[in-house]
């Protein structure tokens, strides 16, 4: 099987360059998965946040407020120095700064000066908004007590008592504890798959489609069908090996949680996407001439699709306009399937329909890529541009 062997040889020859890709992208995938999954996508998280409070009042109120915040968050002790505070903020040592001005308690109690607290928060810290609310809530409750003629100290303690109340929250099923690392891994996988598969297979297709080489193969006694079969075999072998490596990686790192039906469906979903990636590589190999162009287009497709289809930014946050465009890209349907599986508490014939629909659509994309590529290759054969 000469074509198949040649396929392997070309892949081996280029192995250094796409091994570099694999190493780097695996690192990226690992980091993505770890960081992404520890990033809860709650915008109002009640996780503890490092805060610096500059208390210029030193009153009972300011101390009580500080204690209230301190119970819920992590207090960091800092000087009231603009540079030091900016630095601390910049380097994420703190995410929120609160200034309690002098005579705040007096002003608050008398409702006179309307002296205000001041805060600065990190622009991308969503918990900052939540902290604002917590502070507002505290003071509003306190004000309510004071207006109802409670003694100051009583008002403080009642406020504290009230605000200690909270709802118990439970998750309905344990399935949710389906390790989010698995779902994040599969969310970011397409970016890596596209980049790696195209950079592994693209050069091979390009070589075979070089004018002189293609003609020589045409003129040989090898039938077109046989040639194509061998090429297909070569693709399948190489891509399965690469895809297999990723599957092994995720299985090994989540050995206890991976053997579920949901994970199996995710794996199947990624297999379909693998075929799409091969299709794209095949298509690109028909008309790209050199490795530079391949390089650029690969990254353009990988990054572009990743941003638009919901790989880097969750689909639920993308606008309708972008999503409309995204629907014409295969990765959108992959991600949608992945999200459907994340949301599913149990798998029934009824709720699997959207997933199956996604699989069908992705398959259609794959078929389309192959057909277009074959059409182009026939065009080139019968109407060659000399």
């Amino acid at each position, binding site marked *: 099987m000469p074509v198949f062997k040649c396929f392997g040889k070309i892949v081996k020859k280029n192995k250094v360059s796409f091994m570099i890709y694999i190493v780097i992208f695996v690192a990226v995938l690992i980091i993505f998965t770890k960081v992404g999954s520890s990033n809860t996508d709650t*915008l109002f998280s009640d996780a503890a946040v490092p805060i610096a409070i500059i208390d210029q009042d030193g009153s009972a109120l300011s101390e009580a407020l500080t204690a209230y915040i301190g119970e819920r968050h992590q207090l960091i002790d800092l000087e009231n120095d603009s540079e030091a505070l900016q630095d601390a903020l910049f380097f994420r040592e703190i995410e929120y700064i609160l200034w309690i001005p002098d005579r705040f308690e007096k002003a608050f109690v008398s409702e006179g000066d309307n002296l205000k607290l001041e805060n600065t928060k990190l622009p*991308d810290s969503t918990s900052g908004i939540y902290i604002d609310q917590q502070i507002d809530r505290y003071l509003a409750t306190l004000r309510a007590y004071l207006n109802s003629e409670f003694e100051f100290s009583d008002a403080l303690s009642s406020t504290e008592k009230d605000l200690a109340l*909270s709802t118990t929250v439970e998750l309905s099923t344990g399935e949710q504890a389906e390790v989010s690392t698995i779902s994040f891994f599969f969310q970011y996988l397409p970016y890596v798959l596209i980049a790696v598969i195209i950079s592994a297979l693209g050069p091979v297709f390009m070589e075979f489609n070089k004018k002189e080489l293609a003609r020589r193969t045409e003129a040989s006694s090898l039938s077109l069908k046989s040639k194509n079969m061998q090429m297909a075999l070569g693709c399948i072998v190489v891509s399965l090996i690469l895809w297999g490596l990723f599957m092994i990686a995720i299985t090994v790192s989540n050995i206890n949680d991976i053997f579920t039906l949901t994970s199996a469906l995710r794996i199947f979903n990624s297999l379909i996407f693998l075929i799409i990636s091969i299709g794209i590589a095949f298509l690109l190999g028909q008309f790209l001439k050199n490795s530079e162009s391949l390089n650029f287009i690969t990254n353009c497709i990988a990054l572009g699709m990743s941003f638009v289809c919901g790989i*880097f930014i969750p689909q639920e946050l993308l606008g309708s306009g972008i999503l409309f465009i995204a629907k014409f890209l295969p990765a959108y349907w992959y991600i949608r399937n992945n999200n459907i599986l994340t949301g599913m508490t149990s798998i029934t014939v009824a709720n699997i329909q959207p997933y199956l629909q996604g699989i069908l659509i992705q398959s259609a994309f794959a078929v389309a890529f192959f057909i277009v590529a074959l059409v182009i290759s026939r065009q080139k054969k019968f109407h060659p541009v000399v």
Partner: protein
Amino acid sequence: MLHSFKYAFLCSIRNKSQLFWTLLFPIILGTFFHFGFNSIIENTENFSQIPVAIVTLTEGETSETFIEVAEQLVSGETPLLNPQFVDSQQAEKLLENEEIDGIFYIDDSIRLVVAEEGLRSSILKQISDSYLQTFSTVAAIAQTRPDLVTQVIEDINGEFQINREVILGKGETDTFLNYFYALIAMQCLFACYQGFYRVVNIQANMSSLAARRCVSPVKKMHMVLVDFIASICTQFVLLLIVLAYFVFILGINFSGQWGFVLLTSFVGCIVGVSYGTFIGSVLKSSKRTAEGLLTGLSLFLCFLSGLMLQNIKNVIENYAPIINRINPAALLTDAFYSLTVYDNYSRYMHNIISLLIIAAIFCTVSILNLRRKRYASI
């Protein structure tokens, strides 16, 4: 000198694939960002009508008042809740079929069951927390001043403007501006291709063209320097085009300190070209391997500076801050960030100087390698 420069510049600017990478690609990606982010902001403001089930386990004051509150949250201009009053079994079924986001079980207290953690479940929790706390306050006050109860409820839940946000330093940045900074940093780093190809064309053991140039009576270092400057100029011109597109067509606001923005970009170009030159002068392997390395490494550095995952720099700051100090992409994004946020330039200058030191190191090593005039094999 001018003669060499003219042709070096022409070579750089006519290289089609490089043009694509360093010009079209950032423009395309920037356009995606712009439309993508505008819609994110729309979407996060819009949370209304969260479907929820309310199951009363024990009739009592708690349940009555809660139901009243829930009904209030239904009416109004922006109804927050869409409640259904059902029994336990029905509620569980609704949750399973994802027709509701959560179930409030009410007896003496409130218990919330949700299918998954997320924005909506957090909002539900807030609603019930707020209810419990208000209820407690109202109960306490009602004991001595029942006449003030309505006023109290209004006060607690009304707008309370006592905490004012101030800007430390200069300004608040738009969260998503960081993505654009990362994109510009990426473009600067991709100048590495320019640097690399110029080296290929000057190292006699890498191409015949280089051999011909080395046999000419022009000093090699002279050619290296001219190529280097031409690459930086080309890259800078392309970057200006991209910046112009961002500012004038997409309407991104880069803080208005144009002198410093351009300085940062220029320094970025220098770093990019010198890192490409470095790789070219040090790597002995084939062109394809080098291209793979340049692309992979640049993307990786950009990834670590926040191009794809926003808070990665925070994470790195916590675990391995040294990476943020030496990653050119991170230094560039930090420089842009400092321009917009801080009112003095110390942080900014620190970043710029670090970048220049990195470029100097790359250049020095490159020169030491390129100085070689004879090769062991060609």
